[in-house]
């Protein structure tokens, strides 16, 4: 039984999204938001979950209507569908988690411009059945989320001496202000991408 799971298609799709085709570390997509919101862990978690929902919902919808989408307007169709779900997420956060909604501010709206969401619709959902598209959306969303959380743990610790707003270093700690700013994000994310590629032996081959 255990052996069977490892050879199923959903398992392989899931593994690809998380590791082999990780949207941030391997495909280097969604970098703008990864740099912007990773200076606090709670923001990274909320953003990760929001993006995961939008990828799953938009992949599901695109996959369900893929046979009716005229090829000429498919990009516009993705944008309309993605924008709709992003507004749904924004309304949901404002209604039930107003504190997180105000913390994330404009970044929730910017999920619309996250390349991963449109990338999964174009690369996967438009040519695969609904059940696999959901798995692919979930895997890519979680692949994005865990990289965001890993980067934000390092940045929040160095920039503020806290993790999830809980003080974890002594009073003598001097905050690294640059870690809270975009350059700090570049350094940590760059190191993280290097680490993942080293571990997964994913190297770009030059001709």
């Amino acid at each position, binding site marked *: 039984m255990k052996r069977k799971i490892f050879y199923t298609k959903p398992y392989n799709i899931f593994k690809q999204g998380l590791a082999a085709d990780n949207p941030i570390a391997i495909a280097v997509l969604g970098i703008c938001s990864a740099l*912007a*919101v990773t*200076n*606090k862990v709670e*923001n990274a978690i909320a953003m990760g979950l929001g993006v995961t929902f939008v990828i799953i919902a938009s992949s599901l919808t695109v996959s369900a209507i893929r046979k*009716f*989408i*005229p090829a*000429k*307007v498919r990009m516009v*169709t993705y944008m*309309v*569908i993605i924008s*709709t*779900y992003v*507004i*749904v997420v924004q*309304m*949901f956060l*404002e*209604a*039930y988690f*107003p504190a997180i909604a*105000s*913390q*994330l*501010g*404009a*970044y929730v709206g910017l999920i619309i411009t996250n390349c991963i969401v449109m990338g999964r619709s174009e690369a996967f959902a438009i040519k695969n059945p609904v059940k696999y598209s959901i798995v692919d959306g979930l895997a890519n969303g979680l692949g994005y989320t865990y990289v965001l959380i890993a980067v934000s743990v390092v940045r929040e610790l160095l*920039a*503020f001496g806290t993790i999830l707003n809980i003080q974890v270093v002594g009073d003598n700690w001097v*905050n690294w*202000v640059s870690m*809270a*700013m975009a350059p700090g994000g570049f350094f940590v994310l760059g190191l993280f991408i290097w680490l993942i590629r080293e571990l997964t032996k994913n190297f770009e081959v030059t001709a």
Partner: protein
Amino acid sequence: MNKHVQMLVFVLFLGFFTSILLVGMGALTEERIAQNEAALLQSAILDGFDEEYTFGNINDVFNDTVTVYEYEGYTFYRDDASGRVSFRFEGGGVWGPIIGIITLESDLETIAEITILAQEETPGLGGVVAERDYLDTFVGKTMEIDIVKGAVTLNANQVDSITGATRTSDAFEGILNTDYEDHITVWLANQE
């Protein structure tokens, strides 16, 4: 021709589907969002007046203790027991508007409390402007406020700026002072 009709039908279907989703979600959340906004405003004012409340009775406590005055398009909230006065301030930050409530002591100069209702500053940097720890540094200071960088000793009207967010600090100082001047002129003119 057939292709064009097909595309038109598809666009109509997509518009219908997304509209239904948005209208449905709007209907589900509209009331709650309005309640959240009203409760946020009321809690900011009651915090400034040091009144105790729970989210169950916030409306009743607000109606019992706060008197609302409308003068020349400006709204003021007054706690008759302590004489404290609150009003809403609003102005442009770095990325979007900074909106909040400021409560003044009965001398109409000393800050009793500031609460931010909405802001879109950079999370972790300018976003600190909405954090309670930072806003508490304004308590007891007198208007007009002066937000300064790296001062060793602070005067009665001076507050430390936010590290790494000079533009937000400058904007916040401007918003507080401009709105204070506007509101206090109207309030004093109508109290005579």
